[in-house]
């Protein structure tokens, strides 16, 4: 795979690569917004916090060592986000109960810590990006087979009738896209299979 996510992060580390940075931003910003909103930050403030996270990411990425361990970047990004969120909460004082609870709750962020909501949002976002990427580079009929059978669980015979391919072809198409999605997920160190 010439353009893996690993290389995207490598490219982002080279701070001159604005294309890579834009891509990185497009992938991770919605996730960060959703997450800080989930932690009780208002919509208005969320943009500030996320901005703060990104401004920390630039220098922090320089020290980040990408390895093949699953979820490594996910937990690293979580830590950066959390530190930014905690600092922001402290700066804001104890104005809001949610923020106060947040600051009290996590004075020190441990290396191995993460949280379930983050993991869920992160995986969801990666899957969303991956699925969209595959969809955008696939013939509509092929995509319809995958979407209908795998995502929507509609009967293969029905999809076959609508798209004018054989039932077998529905499965072949679905299987091909499933394997592409699997590969793409792998490139984010987020295997599709959760086991």
């Amino acid at each position, binding site marked *: 795979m010439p353009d893996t996510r690993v290389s995207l992060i490598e490219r982002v580390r080279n701070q001159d690569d604005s294309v890579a940075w834009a891509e990185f931003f497009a992938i991770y910003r*919605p*996730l960060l917004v*959703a997450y800080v909103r*989930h932690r009780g930050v208002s919509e208005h403030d969320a943009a500030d916090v996320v901005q703060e996270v990104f401004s920390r990411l630039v220098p922090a990425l320089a020290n980040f060592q990408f390895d093949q361990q699953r979820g490594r970047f996910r937990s690293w990004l979580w830590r950066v986000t959390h530190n930014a969120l905690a600092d922001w909460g402290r700066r804001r004082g104890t104005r809001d109960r949610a923020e106060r609870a947040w600051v009290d709750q996590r004075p020190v962020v441990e290396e191995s810590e993460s*949280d*379930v*909501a983050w993991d*869920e*949002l992160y*995986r*969801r*976002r990666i*899957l*969303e990006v991956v*699925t969209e990427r595959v969809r955008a580079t696939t013939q509509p009929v092929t995509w319809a087979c995958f979407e209908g*059978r*795998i*995502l*929507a*669980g509609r*009967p*293969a015979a029905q999809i076959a009738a609508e798209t004018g391919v054989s039932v*077998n072809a529905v*499965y*072949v198409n*679905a*299987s*091909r896209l*499933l*394997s592409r*999605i*699997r590969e793409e997920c792998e490139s984010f160190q987020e295997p*599709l*299979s*959760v*086991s």
Partner: protein
Amino acid sequence: MNPACPPDDQLLALATDEPGSDAVCEHIDQCADCRMRVKLLRGEIAELRSLSGPHTVSLPKTVIAGSPTASLPSGTAIDRYHIVGDLGSGGQADVYRVIDPELHRDLVLKLSHRQSAEGDQFRDALLAEARLLAGLDHPGLVRVFNVGLYEGRPYLVLDHVPGRNLEQTFTGKSTSVREAARLIAEVARVVAYAHRHGVVHGDITPRNILIDSQNHPRLIDFGLSKFENAWGESRGPRGGTPEFLPPEIVADAGLPPNSGPAGDVFGLGATLYWLLAGQPPFAASTALGAIARARRCDIDFDALKRSGVPARVERICRQALAAHPHDRPTAEALADALERASRSWITRRRAFGGLATILAIVALFSIWSEITEQPPPPPASVVHSIPKLTIDGTRNISNVVPLRTGDRIAVSCNISQGEQAIMVWFNAAGQLKQFSPVRDVAANIDRMVYPAPHEEIPLTAPEGTDMIFFCRGQPISESDLNACFPVGDPPPPLPAHNYLELLRGEVTLQGPHDKLASRSEFNPAETMMKNINRSLMKHFQSVTGIAFPHRRADESD
């Protein structure tokens, strides 16, 4: 993977529950690797489905009022809450049993079907009301812990109160007048508390009152019926339950759409009437008939006399059921009157025994076994067709684990005519007990049940992990049976919200996967179950089984 193994696309049919080709099915039966591949594919598809589609991180929220939504699988996280069971779906909301991993506490989450956009006035009103509810704190209420939005759908997080509602508890059973008066007096106090905080319930019926494990009533769905479009189950025109509707609700135009405090008092009176007379005040065979009676406030008070209700209690009931809202007492006054009545009456009729049964969730336990002699279909296509432990005959076991001492259990197993089966219970202390199930030829299902059709037995101590097996075939000697089990060896513990299912030689973990249960937590129990199955299969034609966590009645999860 050997060269004879089919490619992924041929396994995909099985992994998505469509029939595969005969050749593939035949191969699958022989090839453990391919069975594993199907399982992995299933896992991937489940993951794709749960993480993609409408549940996206960046998609703008759209308004889809009342759109049908598929129920979310166990293990799904709604913010920090993890679904561990599906408690059913009302007209407008799905109800899930969830746990909060931070608090380790059992909760109920009601997720509205209505998806709403930012700035939606309805949504804002709903959330504001729900926050008001979250501020109410009374032992007679079910505590609202949290309010939020999930994918644009408002949700409420409530305390999980194991118990049955009045309708389930008292239908077809007689109640002592004293017990009825005590229950309604307690509920009236709760209602008075809420009215003082400016909150009206709007739909007080036997269905919305739970009896908790201490035999105290709890009012549920509080104040939410006002927002029946988002939370409630539409049970009649303008919400409410026709047979318990205050007349002002169904009267002609010119009245507010929602019932005020006096409507709640009417609901209390109607519930009292139902407990005493054994029928709703506006009993009718159709909803329209009930509404017609409600309009005329046509209540048969003689039914109370016929049931031997003391005149004083009848009078209280009549006042609460007055046709005009302003003729009814306040909730507080109703509670006072009922308490005074029961006090004076207890002194006269001391001998009257109260009904103080501790009520627990009735769990109907249903294990199905293979009933045909044909070769078993490939595993991929059978997984969805296996009914599991059910509650009230309809719900899934994942809603009731961990079972608790005192829960009532019925076990059943489908079987062909003329076949025999024994039931073996390997309890939490590692003791073995053999039971003879009874044949129950109901409808078109021939099955064996224990203890008897429509009967249950209470789950007894000791607590831990229980295993139940249904073995199809001729009974074997006690010593042979004992040799199949590690007698004296208590089954290893299981995570509180998971159970193991043994079907066709395979032991599978059921309930929330991965996120909540790590393998090491259930591996030892799984191994024990597999070993038992292996031994039993030397004697029987087929074995099905289940292993479930069993806790003390007062133990929290």
